[in-house]
């Protein structure tokens, strides 16, 4: 729609309209690294909050036929440091601490005595690749019942033989496909895949699937700066899929 205006009126109106765009300039704050570091961290926290709201404990991740599973040799070994922390498998026990009725040391045979679940699910790495693997273990929820955990607590923390550490939300821990995994491809976990016990959760990214478990702690408080090896460096804590 064409209008005819005096030059000075056009200039004034243009200025007024330009000023209304001022809020956009607020995004310029992201140009300052010191501020933007904090802001993008806050952005990830907000996204994690949204991810927690979206998460449905009863919504199952896709499972696959045996024919869709990648060959064992094509399932990558991934670790942040050493791939084989030389766990003493003979004398290994899992230490259970925190908000549980029966803390203490648990043997692998006690975990293997719980109902077993085998599943072919997708393992998704934060880097962008994914593989479909075959996993076997017991749902974490079974083990939490065994140790008398307070499932009203908010988090599960784990510590690993390679000094890796992780924490996950209770809703994800109680997901029916979240496993304490002791088998891959029908064989006991090999050392580089986390023997004797690892987390395996098809609703979480790879870096949440801690290997070589040594300690599990049920808690409602996470120590700041001690929520997970990669998370403490900037990865999303929720890390959900």
């Amino acid at each position, binding site marked *: *729609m*064409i*209008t*005819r*205006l*005096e030059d000075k009126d056009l200039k004034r109106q243009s200025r007024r309209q330009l000023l209304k*765009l001022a809020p956009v300039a607020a995004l310029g704050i992201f140009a300052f690294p010191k501020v933007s570091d904090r802001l993008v961290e806050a*952005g990830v926290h907000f996204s994690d909050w949204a991810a927690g709201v979206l998460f449905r404990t009863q919504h199952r991740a896709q499972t696959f036929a045996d024919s869709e599973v990648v060959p064992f040799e094509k399932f990558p070994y991934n670790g942040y440091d050493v791939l084989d922390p030389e766990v003493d498998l003979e004398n290994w026990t899992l230490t259970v601490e925190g908000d549980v009725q029966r803390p203490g040391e648990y043997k692998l045979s006690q975990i293997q005595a719980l109902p077993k679940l085998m599943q072919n699910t997708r393992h998704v790495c934060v880097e962008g690749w994914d593989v479909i693997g075959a996993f076997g273990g017991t749902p974490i929820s079974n083990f939490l019942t065994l140790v008398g955990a307070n499932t009203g607590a908010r988090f599960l923390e784990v510590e690993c033989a390679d000094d890796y550490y992780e924490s996950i939300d209770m809703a994800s821990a109680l997901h029916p496909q979240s496993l304490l995994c002791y088998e891959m491809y029908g064989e006991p976990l090999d050392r580089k895949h986390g023997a004797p016990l690892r987390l395996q959760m098809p609703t979480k990214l790879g870096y949440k699937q801690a290997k070589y478990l040594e300690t599990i702690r049920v808690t409602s408080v996470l120590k700041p700066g001690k929520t997970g090896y990669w998370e403490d460096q900037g990865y999303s804590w929720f890390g*959900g899929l």
Partner: protein
Amino acid sequence: MGNGEGNNNEGRNQEEMSKEGGQDAGSPLESVMSAKADGAEGPAVESAEAKVDEPVLVRAAYEHPLPIRLTHWVNAISLFVMVASGLRIFRAFPSFGPKIPEKVLLDIPKSLTLGGWLGGALQWHFTFMWFFAASGILYLAYQVGSGHYRTVLFTPRDIAGVWPMARHYFFFGPKPPASGQYNPLQKLAYTSTIGFGVLSLLTGIVLYKPAQFSWLAFLFGGFHLTRIWHFAAMCGFLSFIPGHLIMVALHGWSNFVSMLSGWKREPEYQE
């Protein structure tokens, strides 16, 4: 706003002249609005005097309403961040094939990326995805709600006009007459970017939460293919942006300013 008719404005201008010019320095809106009231008395003023130095009226059009300008710039900034951080994320696994063996598809120079490392890039990506989504949704809601989308939406009627315009731009063909705010080629380009935006947002949701949005992942042909669509949407944006910037540069300052102030001075088209 500001669509006072030429005649009325002239009437007011004459009046102003007779008061020995330009003393009422009220707000521009007031002066434009008062033009209507003054208009009625306009003819009474002696026109001989007024004609001495009648102020020149500028043809102008309020092309871009505030929501459009706001979302355009928020979108421009977020798109820059999403592409630069997205390329850094892609560097972590620059392939669409299997992890073993990994074939590097593209080695994107670090200097073109944002975030410093995968974790940093993800932080930028996960922050600006909200700005990108919010501005996109606000833009679409405004376009549909106001009916303004008709100026931008590419429809079958525009098909015939694409080739003459492309011939003019790329092969020095004759310039087709301007028919409206946007020519058919512009409509095609802008409508495509809306498509790229919707595609990048939906595929982004799948890549972010493939298990929660398994139905959406299924629609895009699974996780793997979704990653390719997501990348393709970015390529779409990257193919649009240089052309867009070149056209803005070629069309001059007043065209560029119109996306800041909304007002375009001396538009090419009539009515």
